[in-house]
């Protein structure tokens, strides 16, 4: 105590420091951690719309602790779960010895004081995604039926998706913030005029489960959609004309993501892995039958860096980013399960600033005149060396040199492996170049100078400057 007083009189800043309080708190906790205790009662204050049964389920984990340490951990964990359900603005925890006169000696009362988020949520905005921009509006009803259900209706109008309407109703599974199921209905008009001379109208309904496992993030979904390819451009190619018309797809898909990167847009270390499978033709519904696999992996490795960059006053500004080597590999295979050719809406597209730089969007692979037809099998890879710029190391700005390569081919089910490999390696499209990367808080922007090295005949390549805007770069 004397120490405290001395310090208080000696220096100007107020003394009751956070560290001190924390230190004492830890001391107290350490002393009592292993003492027995149990949760006698749990109350959630401040709820109006949330159902009791739902809260019971969401807080059931708080009762298991047998020692004070366990109780504190469990309660903290439960508060964190409540917070992540996205229905409360704040969750405050009060832990006290039980006031119940009949309670045992080591009993505790837990009180969660919460504040519910407003129920209706209106949002309008503009968004930038992978190579597309849109403006959108949505109405969200949070906690619609008192069980953290989310009712979302959204509309958007953009460059790639001319118009999109979506409705979804989701709810957590077992009151867990990490697992949700939803049902959705959507109607989207995709404008593929730029690279495939047509528009695609998709209407559908689906159900989805999103959850975490020990390995990573999973999404399992069923989708029933009616696709119409129409509005073929006056000068559209014959291959695109042959694709026109209606198709019905009933598919289940599973996608698995393990993301261990330190940053989504501009990682410096860690790895990312995604694996997606889709089986179409489920339940003998529809005229689209195929099995589709797609895999993507990337790894980033940092050399040097880590030093603290200080400004002229000697205050820390940023941490030196060092030189990052990043490697990205993608591949996909679509196998039709009947003798029909796959629909262009299901095929893969390759090329563009986000996949193979130095080629136009969907500029690699099968093509008829200026129309990209999509492919059934592809591979693509990219190596980038990302370096800080002199004097700008503290800014989210980097320079990079890269080499991208890939190839996409039409593929028929039953083609032998050796033939497939031959076709995939016969005409690689390769480009190299350098550029600047700007990491904005919502997207990554790249300005590159690209030099196509080898192309397949018909590829739409782009010499010189290319601008890329998106989230998932290669």
């Amino acid at each position, binding site marked *: 105590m004397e120490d405290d007083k001395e310090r208080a009189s000696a220096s100007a800043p107020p003394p009751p420091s956070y560290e001190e309080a924390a230190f004492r708190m830890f001391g107290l906790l350490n002393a009592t951690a292993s003492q027995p205790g149990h949760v006698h009662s749990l109350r959630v204050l401040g709820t109006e719309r949330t159902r009791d049964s739902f809260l019971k389920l969401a807080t059931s984990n708080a009762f298991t602790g047998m020692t004070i340490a366990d109780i504190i951990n469990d309660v903290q964990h439960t508060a964190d779960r409540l917070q992540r359900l996205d229905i409360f603005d704040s969750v405050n925890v009060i832990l006290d010895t039980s006031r119940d006169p009949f309670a045992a000696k080591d009993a505790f009362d837990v009180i969660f004081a919460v504040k519910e988020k407003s129920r209706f949520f209106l949002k309008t905005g503009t968004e930038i995604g992978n190579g597309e921009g849109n403006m959108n509006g949505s109405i969200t009803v949070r906690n619609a039926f008192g069980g953290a259900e989310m009712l979302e209706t959204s509309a958007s109008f953009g460059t790639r998706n001319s118009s999109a309407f979506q409705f979804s109703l989701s709810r957590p599974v077992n009151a867990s913030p990490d697992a949700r199921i939803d049902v959705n209905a959507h109607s989207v008009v995709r404008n593929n005029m730029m690279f495939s001379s047509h528009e695609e109208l998709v209407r559908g309904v689906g159900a989805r489960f999103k959850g975490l496992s020990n390995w990573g993030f999973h999404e399992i979904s069923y989708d029933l959609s009616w696709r119409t390819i129409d509005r073929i451009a006056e000068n559209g190619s014959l291959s695109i004309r042959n694709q026109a018309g209606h198709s019905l797809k009933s598919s289940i898909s599973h996608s698995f993501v393990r993301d261990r990167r330190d940053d989504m847009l501009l990682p410096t270390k860690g790895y990312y892995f995604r694996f997606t499978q889709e089986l179409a033709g489920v339940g003998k519904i529809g005229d689209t039958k195929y099995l589709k696999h797609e895999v993507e992996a990337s790894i980033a490795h940092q050399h040097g860096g880590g030093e603290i960059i200080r400004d002229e006053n000697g205050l820390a500004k940023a941490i030196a980013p060092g030189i990052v080597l990043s490697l990205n590999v993608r591949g996909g295979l679509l196998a039709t399960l009947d003798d029909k050719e796959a629909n262009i809406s299901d095929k893969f597209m390759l090329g563009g600033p986000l996949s193979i730089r130095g080629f136009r969007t969907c500029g690699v692979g099968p093509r008829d005149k200026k129309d990209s037809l999509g*492919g059934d099998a592809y591979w693509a890879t990219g190596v980038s060396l990302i370096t800080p710029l002199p004097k700008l190391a503290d800014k989210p700005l980097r320079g990079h040199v890269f080499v991208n390569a890939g190839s996409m081919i039409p593929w028929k089910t039953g083609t032998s492996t050796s033939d497939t490999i031959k076709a995939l390696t016969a005409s690689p499209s390769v480009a190299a170049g350098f550029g600047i990367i700007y990491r904005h808080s919502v997207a990554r922007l790249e300005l590159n100078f690209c030099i196509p090295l080898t192309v397949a005949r018909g590829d739409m390549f782009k010499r010189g400057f290319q601008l890329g805007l998106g989230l998932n770069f290669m």
Partner: protein
Amino acid sequence: MSRPQLPALPTIELPAFLEPLKLKKFPLKTFPATYEPTRPTKPTLQVFGPGWEGKQASFDVDCLSMQVYLKFCGVDFDVVHSNEPYASPKVKLPYLVVPPDHCLYGEQIHHWLQKNEKSKKLGKEAEDIESKAYVTMIEKKLGAALLFTLWLEPLNASELTSAKYFGHVSNPIDKLLAYRKKEEVVQSLLIDRDVLIREEIYQSAAETLSALSVKLGANDYFFGSDYPTYLDAVAFAYFHVILAIPQITDSNADKEAKSHATELRNLVLNHSNLVKYTKKMYSTWLK
């Protein structure tokens, strides 16, 4: 109104030492294409098909009239049963693909025929104009009756027509499309009339058929021509489509509905010269 001409943008010549920046030398190597699209080697007519009983003749009047007219004109062409109007530039079948990959539709086909001096016209100018009037009459009067028979006679619509037009689309979208098409037909018929009355529509079809029967007489072709013209193509297409619709033999069906379904067919059958003409045309040009 023409837009004001903007001054041309200045063209900047790159200095010679910057020429390498254009990267003319790149790409260094061009590999063979990963896919070679197949191109038609001769004109291809995209139609609804195949016709009833798997025959080459289309079941759609517009398609069939163009199909047979191209034969009249001596065009060497293939018929493709695409069944997909969305593939056409005008969202309507038929359309003609001319090598390498030009798509022609409607009037464009006639222009193309004229340019290649293949189109068949009647010798006299006055007759040619009159024949155009006949084509319009057939398309309007007989066309309305045919649409009514195909889409609004419940027996035909549900048992025959829907399956023919939308059979290639998967269930249940085909039902939806058929329903939409029916609505469209009703709307198109209501453009010319206030109410749809079966008797009225068939009556005017009967009058048209009588007029055509008189005009044809005992000749091989209309206007006593030595060779068939576009009028013959259109007239034949209508007669053939009407006569080719299978008769529903299902005994469970309502008797009245059955007689309605074949009413238009019976109207054509009343004119023996038209029936003979249709049979002869079919065996000459489509077999």
